[in-house]
């Protein structure tokens, strides 16, 4: 059943499939540009990150794909960048509140501002998440998103203690973002899509320098822009909810371009990491059926693999796998794997 999918590192052979996925990305997803040069560079950089000996988070950028084992097709991709502000600024708007009170006039106003901030620059960034639409609402999408968290659990020192994810904010049918229209437009002088094209370039980080450096008063923005703050694009609710379920929270940060929420969590707060454990593999012809779904990840770096198993029981500190499943994970009886129970999900 659910064992029909595996997450593994992207390789150059996945290029065409990834390019097709990139073409389906929502407006504003700068981390998955439908640009051949940048995409192949992304795959190369992931491969070298996976083969590097890393003891603290730096420039590494990991990129995984979701493969349908039945067809061999790549139907999703997702990545994690070790340090989002590595050598390039990573700005967010931080939502701050002030009380402007006049005791004499008996007025007390709560004032909201958005202040450009580099607070999140040291965080590790979950990004480049894209699943072919038929699979978006299946357990495979969850497997893809959570596989990154198990990679973090395996190699915590490769990442920052804080993981974040920028969720795409709202835009209209024409791809225009109301927040951009009210804010970014004045500082870039170009529409959202044009800005997106510029950003597809590696210049994104430097272009952030054009943004307003004084805090913005939310009450002065047009209504449409105010309503966009912290709102999730309808097409991004699935990745948003997967991470919320894991304990990520929309803190006080939003994206500087479309005001979509930035989710954040510390490693130890993340369910898939906190509830994960190491155990041995026991390959058997008929694995016993239990009542918990399990994510199972091998401990390899360069050949990292994760599968999602249906209800499965662990016996004597070992997880029972069929030969097929063991093959998908590239492991044999006696190997250690990391398992993490997940609640029963749609299949």
């Amino acid at each position: 059943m659910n064992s029909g999918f595996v997450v593994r590192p992207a390789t150059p052979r996945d290029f065409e499939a990834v390019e097709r996925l990139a073409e389906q990305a929502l407006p504003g997803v700068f981390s998955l540009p439908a640009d051949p040069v940048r995409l192949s560079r992304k795959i190369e950089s992931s491969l070298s990150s996976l083969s590097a000996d890393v003891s603290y988070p730096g420039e590494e950028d990991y990129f995984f794909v979701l493969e349908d084992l039945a067809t061999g097709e790549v139907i999703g991709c997702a990545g994690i960048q070790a340090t989002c502000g590595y050598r390039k600024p990573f700005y967010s708007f931080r939502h701050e509140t002030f009380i402007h009170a006049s005791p004499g006039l008996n007025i007390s106003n709560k004032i909201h501002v958005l202040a450009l901030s580099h607070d999140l620059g040291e965080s590790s960034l979950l990004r480049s998440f894209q699943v072919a639409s038929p699979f978006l609402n299946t357990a495979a999408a969850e497997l893809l998103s959570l596989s990154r968290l198990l990679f973090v659990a395996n190699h915590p020192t490769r990442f920052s203690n804080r993981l974040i994810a920028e969720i795409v904010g709202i835009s209209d049918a024409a791809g225009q973002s109301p927040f951009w229209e009210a804010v970014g437009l004045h500082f870039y002088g170009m529409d959202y899509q044009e800005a997106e094209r510029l950003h597809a370039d590696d210049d994104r980080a430097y272009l952030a320098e054009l943004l307003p450096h004084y805090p913005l008063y939310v009450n002065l923005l047009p209504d449409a822009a105010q309503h966009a703050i912290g709102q999730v694009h309808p097409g991004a609710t699935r990745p948003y909810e997967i991470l919320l379920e894991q304990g990520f929270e929309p803190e006080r940060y939003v994206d500087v371009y479309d005001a979509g929420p930035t989710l954040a969590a510390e490693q130890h707060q993340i369910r898939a990491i906190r509830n994960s454990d190491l155990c041995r593999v026991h390959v058997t012809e008929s694995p016993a059926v239990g009542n918990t779904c399990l994510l199972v990840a091998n401990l390899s770096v360069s050949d990292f693999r994760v599968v999602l198993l249906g209800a499965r029981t662990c016996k004597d500190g070992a997880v029972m796998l069929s030969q097929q499943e063991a093959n998908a994970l590239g492991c044999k009886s006696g190997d250690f794997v990391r398992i993490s129970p997940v609640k029963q999900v749609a299949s």
Partner: protein
Amino acid sequence: MIIRPVAATDLDALMNLAKSAGSGLTTLPADEARLSSRIRWAQKTFAREVERADADYLFVLEDDEGQVVGITGLAGAVGLREPWYNYRIGMTLSASPKHGIYRPNQTLSLANDLCGLSEVCSLFLHPEQRKGTNGRLLSLSRLVFLAEFRELFSDKIIAEMRGVSDENGSSPFWEGLGKQFFTMPFAQADYLTGIGNKSFVAELMPRFPIYTSMLPPSATECIGVVHPNTRPALRLLETEGFAHRGYVDIFDGGPVVECETAHIRAVRDSQPLILAVGTPSDTAVPWLIHNRKLAQCRITCDHAHVAAGTLVVTSQTAQRLCLKAGDQVRAVPLYRPTIGDIRP
């Protein structure tokens, strides 16, 4: 017509004037207690009993029948007792030559920069008297007074000009900016500042600079723009050397104009002269004439001419100034001479 210091007996006349002014003239609200207290302060000021921080030189314009038809004021210093706020217009630039991006964005920053400066203020002329040289006399009298008593004022003088508002007293600048922070109508905020309650400005106003590109166009169009009725008053000060240098009112966005005291035409060109009573010649032009007195100050304007170090005026003018021939006056032509006026 004469300009003289306000007197206690002027209260009723000032109340009537204030009622005809409407909103926008924040320094002359129709509030009897406030007005009578202002008159008392002005009397102390002319008696040299107050410090510059509290000095309020309030003058009235009186016709020959003793009717008060206008008011005009000069504050020793603004913002020395409590903060004085303006927005300072600034600019930020977002530029990336590589991408052909060059975006200037105007900003408004809350500033106390003008604290300590003397201010010409409270000018109001009864609508029926807006004719002839009355407006000019009312406005420029303060400048010739400044020229006489330089030590009582700062080296730079400011004037806040009334900004744009509609017939209901609603200001587009206020609607777009202030109202979002004050949650009260413009007229109320205007009134509160008029009666001297400015602390709420600091309590409620935005403390970070504002990008004006995020305000509604109706509000940005009013930044640094005067109310149509105030245009003549602005033009008058401009011909005296005042200029808008980037400060605007925080409520209605009207411009603050400023000038170095020494560069104000009526200060620079005014001169002490001996009064002579006679018949001004055919070539006489209108002069602004001050009797060089503080508490007994009288300022008027009339045709006069200079002859052998004396200013020749009619006996009626001398009478209005409470002077006689041989007394000293400070005088300046009421109009700035144009090229054609300069004769050998």
